[in-house]
Structures are given as C-alpha cells and as structure tokens.
C-alpha cells in the first residue's frame, strides 16, 4: 500500500518536473526564436530553433514527449508569429514520428542521427506549413519556397543541432534516465 502510494507520488513529481521543464524551455525557445533568431537572416532564411528542439527532444525522450512539446511550442509560436493558431503545431507534430525512428539508437551521443533527422524534418515542417496555407486558399509557389526557404533553413537548422542536441541531452539526464519506447 505504502509502496504504491510512494510510486504515485514519484510519478506526480516527475510529471510536474517535466511540465515545468517544458514550460521554461519552450518559453525561452519561442522568445529567442521571435526576437534574436528572427534577426539572423542568412541566404534568405532564419534558423528554426523550435523545430530543432522538438526533433532533438523527441529523439532523446520519445515521440509522446516530442508531440506535446511540438503542440505547445507551436501554439506559442503561432501567437507570436501571427500565423493562424495551429499551423506550427500541426507542422511540428508531423516531424516527431520521424524523430521516433532513431529513438533507440545504439549511439545516443552521436550527432549524426539528430543532424540527419533535423535535415529530414525541416522540409516536412516547411511543406506542412505550405500545405496548410494552400488549403486556406493562399497561392503557394512550392518550388521557390523549397529552394529559397527550406533549402537554406536545412543548413541553418543542422548547424543548430551541434549546440542544441548536447544541451538537451544533458538536460534530460538531469531529470531522469531515458526509457526505451517500443
């Protein structure tokens, strides 16, 4: 009885820790994205820190965690960016199953997998945003957007992985060890 109660308390405490961590990290990420990174424009695009964080977190903590981070972070970004609410959430959530492919990698410390996944997730995210815009009746130039926006964004996002992934891995180990997901 006492054991079950202790386990429940532990679960609640972990849940709260995860919630606080998510709130702090995502608030910071969205503010940095909206203010600092929005000023960084290289070859026509800005890096997407939120996307990189969501993909890396999905890789470290699993698809379910990534989905929630993508949903919450996307809502916050849409409010600040002035995009219709839900656009970024949907696009970010679409990238998390991709990240789940490498969840149980035998080389969790290696940067190769997160770099590869971010490189794949960037066009998925971009095309999801373009698709949602097209559905809402806005003319979309798919080729130009892919070449001029998504292409440079891949390079910038991949560069961010080098900093973001180790930082998130360290953060994750401070909370609790990762669990295998099947």
């Amino acid at each position, binding site marked *: 009885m006492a054991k079950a109660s202790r386990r429940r308390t532990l679960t609640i405490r972990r849940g709260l820790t995860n919630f606080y961590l998510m709130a702090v990290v995502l608030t910071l990420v*969205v*503010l*940095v*994205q*909206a*203010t*600092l*990174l*929005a*000023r960084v*424009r290289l070859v*026509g*695009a*800005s890096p*997407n820190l939120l996307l990189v964080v969501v993909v890396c977190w999905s890789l470290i903590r699993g*698809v*379910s965690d990534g*989905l*929630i981070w993508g*949903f919450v972070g*996307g*809502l916050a*970004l*849409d*409010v*600040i*960016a*002035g*995009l*219709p*609410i*839900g*656009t*970024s*959430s*949907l696009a970010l*959530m679409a990238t998390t*199953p991709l990240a789940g492919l490498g969840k149980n990698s035998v080389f969790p410390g290696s940067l190769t997998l997160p770099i590869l996944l971010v490189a794949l997730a960037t066009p998925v995210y*971009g095309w999801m*945003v*373009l698709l*949602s*815009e*097209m559905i*809402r*009746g*806005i*003319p*979309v*130039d*798919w080729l*130009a*957007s892919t*070449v*001029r*926006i998504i292409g*440079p*964004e891949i390079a910038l996002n991949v560069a961010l992985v080098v900093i973001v992934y180790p930082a998130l891995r360290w953060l994750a180990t401070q909370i609790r060890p990762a669990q295998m*997901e*099947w």
Partner: protein
Amino acid sequence: MSRVSSRTFLIFALAAVSVVLLILSSSNRLGPVEGALSSAGRPFLTTFSGLGRQINNMITTARDLAALRGRNNQLQTMVDTLTIDNLRLQEAESENERLRSLLKFRQLNPNYDFRGGQVIARVIGKTPSNYLQSITIDLGSEHGIKPGMPVVTERGLVGRIHKVGALSSTVLLIIDPSSGVPALIRGNRLSGVVAGRAGGQPVMEFIPQDEKIALGDTVITSGLGGNFPKNLVVGQIVEVRQRDYEMFQQATVRPTVNFDRLEVVLVITNFQPLPGEPGEPESVG
C-alpha cells in the same frame, strides 16, 4: 500494446485540437484570444528584442575592438573603458539621425497625419517564421491604429497594418508573397502591381509587353485600388524580364527600404483604405 494505443490517441487528439484551432483562427473567431495573448507577450518580446539589439551592437563593437587591437595596442585600455559610453552615444546618435529623417519625411508629406506623441512606431519584433514577412510594432488599437493603414520610413513604403492588438500591431511587408502594391514607374508612368516573391526580391507584374522599361527607374505607388496613398517610393528596377509568348513583362524591384534593419517606422493614420478590400492573408512562398 496499451502504450502504442495511448500514443496514437495522443497524436490524434493533439492533431484534432490543432485543426480545430486552425479553422477557428483562420475564420478570425479567435481574434480576441490572440489579441489578449499577444498583449500579454508584448513586454517579454520588447525586452528580448532590446536584448537582441544590444547583443548585435556588442558583436559589432567586439569586431571593431579586435581591429583596433591589431592596429594600436596602446589605445586598447582606453577603448575598453570608453566602449560602453560609446555604445550609448552611438545608439543615441543613430536614433537622432533616424528621427531627423522621419521628421523630414513628415515635412515633405504634410498631407499625412501622424499620431501625436506616437508618430513613430518602434519595431519590437520580426516574424519568427520564414513563411511570413512581417514585423511587429509597438502601436495598437489604443493608439488609433487600424488594419490597412500604410507603414513607411523616410526611404519608402514598408507595408501595411495587417493585424491589430491593443498595444501592438503586425505589419505585412511589401516583400511578402501575399502582398500586392499597385505601382507605377516614375519615368514612363507605366502601371503594374508589385508583388513579393518567396526568398527573393519583389516583382512588378502586369506591365504591358510593348513598353520599354529602363533599369534604375524608380517605382512608386500609383494609388490605384485605394489601398495605398499615391507617390510613395517602393524601389528601383534592377532587372526586366520580357518573353515574347507572355502577355505582360515583369520587372524585378529592389526595395529602397532595408527590411533587415528596420527599427522605427511611421504609420500613416489619416489614410483610409477602401472598404471591402481584403486584408492580406498570412503568406507563404
């Protein structure tokens, strides 16, 4: 098994919520909520934006210091101590210059009304999305700002007010692909529409095929359609594309405004866009 099911449920539940929010937001039913959230986030945005500017300044200063160190080591100590004061002075001076330029624009265009103490809107944010070219300014409905109002700098047309919150507004830039500005070429008075291009410079479309266009000609607003006042500078023609099989020719326009370095803008408050004109939707490439 149950784990897989709960994850699938989570995916569908969150996706469903997102789609519902997207539909409500697209049909402007979440306007008050979005406005309230945007107002709540404004102080943080302003703070972080200022921080970003400071960091930019500090990076520039650091570069300057590195160059100075190479040239003259003896002055290093003095430079270090004066850097902070210099920063402040430079900031004040450049702001002073910008304000003077804006004042000149006001004097040259006395017909446009500028809001008393809030004449100048400060840019407090740039869109964090690569799929929308907009900026956020620190004036909102409480300052008399309304959707559709043109936004300019002393260098030319910036865009127009797209979304209005209580204390801040979003300006859709003329380089956004969903933006269309009726314009004419100052030299030969040819009219067309300047539209943004994904990741590229805007293009003036619908120019009659048989007309000659000179590179370097200035493009100004034509006032047609009633969305923008007449005679605001848009940019300069840098490239002309003419194909025999097309009905119209196109000209690439380099905007006179540097959208990456916008810090202060003017909102023309006495210009009323024609009713029924659609506010541009959020854009993509």
